[in-house]
């Protein structure tokens, strides 16, 4: 299903953030959102309503893989980990992001 309009850009960014967060090791959904929030110093608050659909989408694309495990709280949780193709995708998207921000920066500076 297509998610149109305002969420488009954010959807792509969220994917990137998730992939990056998982680069350092497998996490479950809540932990991913917590980590992003932490590192961005509460600037980026992941809307939980977008997190899980995003996770499922990434799983369908084969970039992350899920399996059930036991969480810190002792209850079952679904852990996601990055796959090889996910790593490659992360590289690609990081690269794109870098170029994107650099371009915006140049315009802001020189226009």
């Amino acid at each position, binding site marked *: *299903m297509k998610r149109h309009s305002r969420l488009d850009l954010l959807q792509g960014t969220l994917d990137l953030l998730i992939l990056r967060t998982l680069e350092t090791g497998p996490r*479950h*959904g*809540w*932990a991913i959102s*917590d980590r992003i929030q932490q590192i961005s110093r509460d600037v980026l608050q992941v*809307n*939980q*309503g977008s997190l*899980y*659909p995003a996770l*499922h*989408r990434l*799983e*369908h*694309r*084969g970039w992350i893989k899920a399996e*059930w495990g036991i*969480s810190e*709280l002792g*209850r*079952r*949780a*679904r852990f996601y980990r990055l796959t090889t*193709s996910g790593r490659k995708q992360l590289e690609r998207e990081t690269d794109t992001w870098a170029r994107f921000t650099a371009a915006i920066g140049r315009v802001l500076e020189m226009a």
Partner: protein
Amino acid sequence: MKWHDIWLRLKALVLHGRAERELDEELRAHIDFEIERYVCRGVPREEAQREAMKAFGGAARVAEECRDERGIRWLEDFGKDLRFACRQFRKQKSFFALAALTLALGIGASTAIFSVVNGVLLRPLPYRHPDRLVSLGCAEPSRGVRQMGFALPDLDAVAERNHSFESVAGYFFRDVNVTGGTPENVPGVHVSANLFSLLGASAALGRTFSRSEERFGNHRVVVLSDALWRRRFGARLTVLGETARLNGELYRIIGVMPPHFQFPARFVQLWMPISFALKDDMATRDNHFISAIARLKRGVSVAQSRTDVKSIARQLDKEFSENAGLDMDASDYLTSVVGEVRPALVILLGAVGVVLLIACVNVANLLLSRASARQRELSIRTALGASRGRVVRQVMTEAILLGTAGAGLGVALSAWLVQLIRAFGPGDIPRLETTSIDVRVLVFTAGSTLVSVFLFGLAPAMDLARVQISESLKEGGRSLSAGARAMWSRDILVVAEVTLSLVLVIAAGLLLRTLERLQHVDPGFQPDHLLTMAVSLPETKYPQNEPAKAARFYDELMKRLEQIPGVRVAGASTAMPIAGWGGWGKYFTVEEHPASRLADVPLIQYREVTSHYLRALGIPVLNGRFFTDGDAAERPLVAVINESARRRFFPNENPLGKRVYPGPPEFTIRNLLPSPDFRTPRLTIVGVIGDVKQSGLRQPAEPELFVPHLQGTAKDNEASSPYMHLVIKTDTDPLRLVNAARAVVQSIDPDQPITHVTTMDHWLEKSLSPQRFQLSLFGAFAGIALALAAVGIYGVISYSVRLRMHEMGIRMALGAGAADVLGIILKHGLKLGGAGVALGIALALGVTHLMSSLLFGVKATDALTFAGASFVLMLVIALASLAPSWRAARTDPLRVLRTE
């Protein structure tokens, strides 16, 4: 990547429950973590829970979005629709059953007929590139002979002189007595050596003919069919090189054909080369009996080859006086095999298409009615957020379910019908016996199903999607819409049904009258208690140059047959009436006024008969006498003609005593005479007998010339034929005497089998079987159409009654009697029916001429049939309208007014 996606989606679809639970658990876990975090910060647990839920933003929607990512939406929706449709149908079993059955009837009948059309007309022949095969024929249009075989020298000429064909081959039938063991008569065919390679067929065992085997002396080789090889030769691999005694001669078996090979028809069991001795009469230019088939050269069309052979015919006409007036033709081979039945089958296809249409219309009406009843429900759905597309899809699902059920039943029904048609169809429809359901047919079924689904599914769906929500949800709004337009379309559909049904009923009626007319045709003789059979004497034992042997055989046979207790009279002829077998044409000259040119010499059907033949059949003598035992070879040669011959050749004079002869005047064939003093023996006409129907009851009688069989021994006369058809008049059931007759034949010649044993009644019945078959089919279709139209009318009237219940209630409360209500409703039905009948008559008038080739003795616009059919239909309509009107009249007005 994409495959991974699809795989996960399928997994989610299939393991639906588990996926749901996992998602649920995952989301729950998330919320728990969130709660813990709040609690850690010191927030009380309850508040923490509330906050967590708020932050999460509506678990249901999240779950929904996840599901969207995960599943195949349209498939899930379809699954839901399907389950809903099934529930609906289970609740209203009778409706569903009626609709599915209607559809099954329409699809089943049309698929069965299409299978037959495909198997007989459309299916390519089982030869190499069958569309390049061409059938060649001769004709003598100036003499009124439209179709005849080739003479061997003419066929050779075509083979040599043509520019259009890769190869040309000839063939002609010959029944073969196979002896050495149980004597058996087997249908065989003589073929040119190149025939098999022309067809692209080769032997499964051994080989087929080589050119050298066409030379007389080398020609005694035979190729067997697989069936004959298995049946009579024990399927031995060593059969090659063995000999078989065919018609008294030893033939060497050189090959066996593969199991499904057939040429030119399935009943042919063995093939022999075409080969004639040098002086053989049969190989002359004026004996036309060979059929021909040719293969077109690459890039040549049938039309071009036709021009080619016609020019060859013109050349031969000029070069040889025997070929005066000769014409030739070429046509596509498949057409020549099935051409005769094509019009009938196409008409059948049309009829069954009409039935299918009626069935679809009926179901459309049924569904329309039901859909209207659901308008309220659908408005609610729309109000709850269903898109228009969704609503349409939901209604369509019902149609699809119905269509599939109907098609499934229909295919089963059609398979059964095809079996039925194969078993009971007239035996002379070519290729019927190998017809079956095949891919083309299944495609046709699928196609017609789709069309029906479209016809009756989409229309009401689109109609409904335009529903006015506010209208239907209003308080007090009736659950049935009184949409005038919807009512209109239903009415029109029913009128269409009635129209189409009437056309079919009229068609069936016309065929019924045709059959009845045919059954009353006078065959010209007494057909009861007649045992018929053929006795074919082999050439080797009864050679042509010793005609006395054959003459004596049959003479003795007749005498001995008449001595069997239970036999009244026995006769024999070279031709069998009604069955149309045997018989050939000869030139005919009346000595007093001979024709001046060969091209003007007329033809007559020539028959050799025994003296009791007339009495055996009970043919009346109109003038003079028939043959007596005294008309033997030594006496003056006599002949008898039939009434048609008298009318044609002696319209204004008494033919008795006139001299005639079965040949052209000698001066017209001066350079072709076998010997300088040859004279065709002159015959004196001693009698005129009544006409007899020679081939079937439809064809008018042709002029016939009868000569006594015994006089075949006279000098220069046509030799007594060794192949005769017997007719034996019995006291009781003819078939009881078969064994006695066989014993008598074998008492004269122990090796002689009898063939084609049956009764004249059987031939009569057989000649009517095409008509009977057509009538049964059309009758069945008309019956189905009538039933469907009745159901249609019933449905529409019932529906209209339900609609107008309120109105009727008011009327009755205001004083209208039950009879008045009955009248109103009934009038509606009769109006619809009347319109349908009127339109039907108009349509039929325009259309029935298409079936005139099937009719006999009755005009395509026969008033009696039209009137009768209309009456039947109006009766059915009246009855169908009566039931619901009756119900309407009996309702309690108070009850009706109280509801809603």
